[in-house]
Every structure is written in structure tokens, then in C-alpha cells.
């Protein structure tokens, strides 16, 4: 490593000499010649030394035999080669014939676990999830209250047909193939905007998985308006080219919906109930998206309808430009290369958020650059100077109106609709920033009711309204819940574990870019700023929960005391009757007056 860095700065000539491994080796073949080569790289010098030592050793017969046999195989036999079993040499030209572009689709075919298709059970869930995410995003962007129908039809024990239909705006005909049958195609990757999808991989990856396991094409129905015709597509993905291959493309004169999209994917999978099941996911999605109505038909059993808990649309999210504090050097270089602005100053002002003319001047002054210079002509060093100047300048936090939290009231009403409990609470923290990216944490809690009292609390992790199912232990949310001392709030909690009690925690992170630990979007990365906001949110809800639990305990104690009073006051009556020879009426009067007096003294 150490030897590598300075070489970069050397001239291309010397670099090429070092880059190819062959020339120094051939030089090293002759011991004396190597010694004369004074400017040879340090590494090769060391090799020469070692080799010269070995030469002095007398060769055993066995070694000699090996060497001679090696000569037969190797096209370029070398007496100084110390490793006898070196593989046959292949020329760079030969290698070049094997080198070619790797298609994204091919890459993900092999690495499908990165996208959440690691096992049949999870694949089924991921497929549903990607389709539902897309539907919800589409409805929201179009300002439509989503009505989504999900059905899973069993074809064989390990084969299902997933159908997800929404009342969204529909997709224009030309876009359909690309959206559903080309990986990394989408509108969301290039903008910083809060949405469920981010990379443009999801639904096409699901389609690809289906194709991979069943050979069946992905089927799409879409219609963009009442007066427009509906289209029906069936497509394969050409994994080699990462391009759609339309099998069927027909225009339908009528369709069930005025506008909307329906996706059907046939795939190999396993359906199971319980934790991390599709059922769970749908229910959690309903909680996280209280403005949506979801109809769900599981492979077994009846259709379940999750009616919307609110008719209020989520706040419209808007795309923001990157904040200078979050940008990395490479990204900065690229942005300045590609900017439409003619001057550096205007590039800074228009391509970033929160850079005013004054701030731009300040950055330029610190970097020692002129505002008029052409941004595309800046050298790497100059850009780095800007990069170093940015943290030294005070810049306003990024705008947070790009975020659309679910909202305290809506979370509470969603929880009320789905979970039977005695206590509901939700907190929406004010927006915060990690790495220059705005985010917002929301924490909801439901406590008591029919939830099991002796089990660990349920944590519903949600990122941009998408419930997360897998990798709970790797997630910043789980870490924060465990890290909160719930004993302060009247709950039991073992060391390093979730709290115990009839508790459901709903934790939502909204951000224009949720930092997941992997492309399968299962766990949120542990950014200190995010952990801090999570902690504060959990504590805030925890305090309210604690107050509730204490109040409940007090009430229980009061009820117990009341029972206690009612148990022993008659005994006082009996004793007084015995001693004072009271009549039964006198006794009962004493008892009732005393009961009344004592009950009044308690605040029940």
C-alpha cells in the first residue's frame, strides 16, 4: 500500500513500467542486471534480493526435476523463478478477449440476495413489497388516495402468482417496458426526494426473479385516464442487454379501472404466516400508510380489507438539491464538470441548496478561487480546495419542507385502527440532517390492550412509509430501542434486549435518502445524527408512556385499596355492634358513613 500512493504522482512513463508485472520480472531473471538497475521500484528490488539468496542454495534433484518439467509447460522458462507451480502464462491480449461489460441484470441475477431475493419466502415478500411501494409512490405523486389490491394466488406449493393493482395515474405506454423490465431505470435515483423507491431496481428485479424461476413474463395492465385506452404488456428481460423484450403488447378497449396499473408476476416462493410474512408486511404497510386502503387476498383464506384511517393526503414531497455539507469530493468534481452554469459561483448557487451569493463568495474566498472561473475547467486540486472550504463556512441546514412525515395524529389514528390498546402516543421530531441530507424521525407507541404482556415489545420499523421486515438486529432503529432505558418508563427490560410488555413501537424515518445498509433496504445505517434523533424520539414517547403506566398502576392500587376498604369496614361495624350493642340499622349506618368518608379521602 505504502509504495503505491506516491507512484501515482509519477509520470505516466514510470507508472507504466510499474503497472505491468512482466518487465521487472524479466529484468530480475538476471541477477547481476537487476543490481545495476538502481531506480527500480522498491518492491522489485526486494524480490531480487530474496531470489539471489535462493539461488545460492544447491538445488535438490527433485527440485531440478520440477524445474525442468516446468520448462516444458511454461512458454517463458525462467531459471530464477522460485515458485515451481506457477500457472501457465496468458497474454494480455488473450485476457482482453474475455473481458466484457457486465450487465446490471446479470450482476443481480447472480447477486439477487442483495435485492432481497435470497430465499423463496423472502422473495415472495420482496416481490409484493416492491410492487406495493411503486403503487403507493405513484398514487402519492399524482395526488390520488391510494386503493391497492394485492392478491397472491397459489399455483403450486412453491409457485405463486402475485398481482398488485393500484388506482394510480397509470404509466404512459412507451415507459412501461423500461420501468418493469430494465434494471436501474427510474425517476427517483437522480433526485433527492422522499419516496419509497430509491434506486429503480425493485420492481424490475422482481420481474427478473420471476422470469428466472418460472420463465414466465411479467404482465402489466395500465391505463392513464378514462378517455384513454388501457394497455396490456407481457415482457421478458433480456438480462444480457438489461433491456425489455416485449412478448405481448395489446391495446384494450375496456379495463376495470379508469386509471391505474396492475402488475402480475409469477414466481417461485414459499408462503408462510407469522413474523416477516406477507400478511405482516401488508398490515404494517396499512399502519404506515393510513391514507391508503389495501385489499389483500392471501393464498389461503379470505380477502382482508384495511380501510384507510385518514383521508388526508400525505404532504407533497419536493426534490431538493444536495446540501454542500453532504457532498463528497468525487461527487463535487462530477457536479462541477457537468453543471450548466458558466461561472463557478453560479454553479455553487444553483446546484446546491442553501448557498446564497454571500455564502458562495465566502467559500470561494476560503478556497482562493475566482467566481468567474469556468466550473468545468477547474483542476482536481482546485475542486478539492472548494471541498475543504465548505465545512469552514457556516451554511444553513438543508430545507426540510422536502420531508413528509406521517404526523402525530395520523400515526395515532392508524395505530388505533389496527391495534387494540389502552394507550396511543406519537411524536414527530423536527427535521434534522445527517451528512447534509435532511431526515425526520417519528415514534409511535401503543400499549396495553390485548397485546401479550410477557413478551418482548414489537418494533415496527418504517422508512419512508415502507415497513422493514428483515435484519432487525442490524438496524439503527432496533439499536436505539434497545439502547433506551425503558425501565425509566415503568417497563421491564433485560440488558441488551428489547423491553418486555404489551407494547408496539412504531418508528418511522422519513428522508430524501434513507441510508440503508444494503440495496435490499432492510436495515438503516447507524449514522450518529440518526441515532440521536431516534433516541430523543423514543425517550419522548417513553416519558409519556411512563406517565401512563404509572397512572395505571396508581389506579390499580386505588382499586385494590377500595376493595380493601370494602372488605374491612364491615368488620369495624361488627366490632362496634358487639361492644356497643348497636342495632343492625345503626351498624349499617356506621359502615356506610365510614365507607363514604374513606372513599372520599382517595382520589380514585
Amino acid at each position, binding site marked *: 500500500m505504502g509504495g503505491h500512493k506516491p507512484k501515482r504522482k509519477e509520470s505516466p512513463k514510470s507508472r507504466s513500467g510499474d503497472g505491468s508485472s512482466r518487465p521487472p520480472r524479466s529484468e530480475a531473471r538476471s541477477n547481476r542486471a537487476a543490481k545495476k538497475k538502481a531506480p527500480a521500484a522498491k518492491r522489485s528490488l526486494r524480490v531480487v534480493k530474496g531470489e539471489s539468496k535462493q539461488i545460492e542454495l544447491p538445488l535438490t534433484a527433485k527440485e531440478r526435476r520440477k524445474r525442468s518439467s516446468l520448462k516444458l509447460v511454461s512458454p517463458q522458462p525462467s531459471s530464477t523463478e522460485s515458485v515451481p507451480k506457477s500457472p501457465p502464462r496468458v497474454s494480455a491480449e488473450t485476457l482482453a478477449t474475455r473481458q466484457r461489460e457486465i450487465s446490471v441484470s446479470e450482476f443481480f441475477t447472480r447477486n439477487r440476495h442483495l435485492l432481497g431475493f435470497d430465499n423463496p419466502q423472502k422473495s415472495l415478500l420482496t416481490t409484493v413489497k416492491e410492487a406495493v411501494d411503486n403503487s403507493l409512490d405513484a398514487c402519492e405523486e399524482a395526488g390520488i388516495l391510494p386503493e391497492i389490491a394485492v392478491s397472491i394466488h397459489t399455483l403450486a406449493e412453491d409457485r405463486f402468482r402475485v398481482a398488485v393493482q393500484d388506482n394510480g395515474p397509470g404509466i404512459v405506454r412507451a415507459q412501461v417496458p423500461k420501468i418493469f423490465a430494465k434494471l436501474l431505470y427510474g425517476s427517483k435515483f437522480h433526485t433527492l426526494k422522499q419516496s419509497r423507491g430509491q434506486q429503480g431496481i425493485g420492481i424490475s428485479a422482481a420481474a427478473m426473479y420471476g422470469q428466472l424461476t418460472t420463465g414466465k413474463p411479467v404482465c402489466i395492465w395500465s391505463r392513464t385516464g378514462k378517455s384513454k385506452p388501457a394497455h396490456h404488456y407481457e415482457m421478458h428481460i433480456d438480462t444480457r442487454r438489461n433491456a425489455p423484450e416485449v412478448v405481448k403488447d395489446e391495446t384494450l378497449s375496456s379495463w376495470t379501472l379508469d386509471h391505474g396499473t396492475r402488475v402480475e408476476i409469477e414466481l417461485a416462493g414459499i408462503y408462510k404466516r407469522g413474523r416477516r410474512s406477507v400478511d405482516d408486511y401488508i398490515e404494517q404497510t396499512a399502519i404506515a400508510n393510513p391514507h391508503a386502503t389495501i385489499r389483500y387476498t392471501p393464498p389461503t383464506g379470505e380477502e382482508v380489507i384495511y380501510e384507510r384511517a385518514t383521508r388526508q393526503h400525505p404532504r407533497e414531497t419536493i426534490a431538493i438539491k444536495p446540501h454542500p455539507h453532504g457532498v463528497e469530493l468525487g461527487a463535487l468534481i462530477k457536479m462541477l464538470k457537468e453543471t450548466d452554469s458558466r461561472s463557478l459561483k453560479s454553479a455553487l448557487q444553483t446546484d446546491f441548496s442553501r448557498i446564497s451569493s454571500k455564502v458562495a463568495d465566502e467559500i470561494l474566498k476560503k478556497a482562493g478561487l475566482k467566481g468567474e472561473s469556468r466550473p468545468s475547467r477547474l483542476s482536481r486540486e482546485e475542486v478539492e480546495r472548494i471541498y475543504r472550504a465548505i465545512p469552514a463556512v457556516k451554511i444553513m441546514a438543508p430545507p426540510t419542507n422536502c420531508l413528509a412525515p406521517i404526523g402525530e395524529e395520523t400515526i395515532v389514528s392508524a395505530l388505533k385502527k389496527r391495534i387494540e390498546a389502552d394507550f396511543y402516543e406519537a411524536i414527530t421530531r423536527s427535521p434534522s440532517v445527517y451528512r447534509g441530507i435532511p431526515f425526520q424521525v417519528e415514534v409511535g407507541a401503543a400499549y396495553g390492550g390485548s397485546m401479550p404482556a410477557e413478551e418482548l415489545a414489537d418494533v415496527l420499523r418504517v422508512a419512508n412509509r415502507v415497513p422493514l421486515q428483515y435484519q432487525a438486529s442490524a438496524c439503527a432503529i432496533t439499536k436505539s430501542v434497545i439502547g433506551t432505558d425503558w425501565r425509566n418508563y415503568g417497563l421491564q427490560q433485560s440488558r441488551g434486549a428489547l423491553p418486555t410488555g404489551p407494547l408496539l413501537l412504531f418508528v418511522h424515518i422519513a428522508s430524501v435518502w434513507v441510508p440503508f445498509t444494503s440495496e435490499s433496504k432492510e436495515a438503516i445505517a447507524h449514522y450518529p445524527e440518526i441515532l440521536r434523533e431516534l433516541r430523543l424520539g423514543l425517550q419522548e414517547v417513553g416519558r409519556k408512556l411512563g406517565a401512563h403506566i404509572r397512572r395505571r398502576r396508581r389506579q390499580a392500587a386505588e382499586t385494590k385499596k377500595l376493595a380493601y376498604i370494602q372488605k374491612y369496614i364491615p368488620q*369495624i361495624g361488627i*366490632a*362496634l355492634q358487639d361492644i356497643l350493642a348497636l342495632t343492625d340499622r345503626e351498624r349499617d349506618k356506621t359502615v356506610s358513613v365510614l365507607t363514604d368518608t374513606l372513599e372520599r379521602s382517595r382520589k380514585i
Partner: protein
Amino acid sequence: MKATQAKRYAAEVKRKNRQQDQNTLKLISGTAEETNQKILKRIKPDLKFPVRSLSNVSYSKRSGYLEIGKQKKVRTLTVTTVKTFAQTLRMMSLSKDLIESNDFATKRDAYYQSKNWGDAGFQEQTESDTVMDDIEAMFSMYQVSREQLRFIPDEHGGAVAGQLIVYDPDIETGEVERIDCTRFGSGAYSIPSSVEHLSFETKAKFVLAIETGGMFQRLQSHKFWQKANCILVSMGGVPTRATRRFIRKLSEEAKIPVYAFVDCDPYGISNIYRTLKVGSGNAAHINQFFCVPNARYLGVTPQDIRDYKLPTHPLKEVDIKRAKDALKNDPFFQSQPAWTQAITHLVKMGVRAEQQALAKWGLNYVLEEYLPRKLKQTDRFLP
């Protein structure tokens, strides 16, 4: 005592008892009435008890026993006290029933009686004992003893032998039993648990209260009481309430002194002798009845250990602690310089000696030499 005299005595006792019972009944119903009236006026009723702890105890030379102080504990009827309050009232009601039926109950009896009280019943005897102690303390403020409430201790009293005739009247029949304590052969008269109704006739010069049954046995079988013209009482460790009351009554009625003969160790001095003379610290509310203020300490004294060259054992840690506690906290010893000196002396010697250590000089040395010699110098007894 002649028959007519006895009859008159029995009648007198009966009258006195009845008077006392009437007084007790009045106190019980008075307390109940006050409680009931307060309840009807929507005022939370309360019961007052003297605080029972050493901090509320003082030694009065005039009265001669540890007196309970003026600190009072008020138990107001609230949600938390409602159970004990009910139990206290029911216990008082039981006392009333016992007086009216001229019966009695031991602590254990009362505990079993409470099993009829439904919810107010006691789970453990310790609970009923506490309630009983509370009532006893409450009524001790009106000079009413537990025996008068008809709650008698389970513990049996000590043994008595010597120049004493005890008259024990049967309240029902009016017959009076005459008990001659010289006529028990090698046995002895056993003090009953309630002694209030007894009366005495004696020509003895003093009462000798003895710590151990063994020593009592030796003096009794050699009829020491005859030789010394005295009454022997075996305390068997710390004297029970009945034993204390018996000795008190006896010494007051016969106007004779009481001499204590106990082991020379902190337990013998500060527990046995102190309790006999001035009563106990944690039940000070009853001390006015259950103590013998005119008792004096015959021996074994720390000085005796030297004078009689008695075999000794080293003081244990608990002994030293007890001795220091007596010097530091006990109002009785603190008021007696002779005792302060003696106890300090004992601690300095670091040893203790038992009564029976005198057997070193011969088994009967105690009655032939030690006691006669001691009794010649009663003025040198410790207070």
C-alpha cells in the same frame, strides 16, 4: 385464716374484681363509643397508644421502675390502617366477651378465636400478638393490665417454696384454697399465670429470687428457707410477668425485702435483675405492675469473684456489648453509681462467674457459708 375470714376475703376479692371489670368494660365501650361517634360525624376516628421503645422510657427513683414516657402514637383510621383498626376493635370486643363471661384467653387462644372473624382473622399469631400488645398499651394508660383485659400469658410462672401461705379464692364458689408452701416436700408451688386475686400470710424475713432451677433445687432440698426464715422463688432466667407480679405483690403485702441471687454476668445483671426490679424496656407500659422496685442484688457480685476466688469464664463479645449497652443506654443503671462502678469493674476483669461456681468450695458451701455471710451484710447489697 379462719373460715369466716376466708369467706369475707373471697367476697372482698370478688367485689374488687367486679369493680375492676366494670371499669374495664367502661373503658372498652367508651373507646368504641368515641370511635362510633366520630365515624357518624364523618371524622376519621383514631386510637392512641403510648410509644413503646427505649426512647420513650425513663427511670424514676421515686416510683422505682422504668416508666413509659408521654410520647403517643395516634393510629387514625385510614385506608391503610383499616384492617388493623378493625382487628383492634374486634380484639377489644373479645376482651369484653371474656370479662362478661368471666373467662380468659391466652395469646394463642385469641389467635384461634380470630379465625371466627372472617376477613378480620389473623394469618399468624405474631399479628394477633401485636394487636394485643397495642390494646394492652392503650389500656395501660388507664392503669388496666392485660390480665384485667382477660388476656393471660402462656408462659408459666416460677416455683415457690418456704415460709409462705397463699390464699387462692375460687370466685365462683367462694371457697378459699389455703396453700402452704412449706409442704411441697421436694417439689414446689407453681405461680399461676394470673396472681391478682391471691393473698398471702407469712412470717418470713425476705424473699430470695434465684436465677437457676438448679440452685433453687439445692436450697429447697436442704430447706434453706427454714434455716434463713425466707421464701425461695425460682425465676428460671428472666422472670415472667406472673413471677414478677407475684414477688411484687408478696413483698408489698408482707412488707419484706426481695434479694436477687443471680449469675455474675451482664445477662444476669442487666436482663434478669434489671427486669425483676424495674421492668423491661420494650414493654414499659406494663412495668408499673410487673416490677419489684424494692428488690436488691445479693450476688454474685463482681467483688465476690475476687473474695471467693470463684472459677470464671472469659466474657464473650455479646456480654461486653450488653454491658456497654447497659452503661450507655439503660436509664436505671445510669442512675445508680454503684451499678455503673460494678459493671465497669466486671468489664475490666473480663470474666464472668455462675452461681454454681461456688460449688468449687463444696456443694453446700453456698448455703452453709456464702449466703449466711452475705445475709449478715444486707446493706452492702447492690441497689
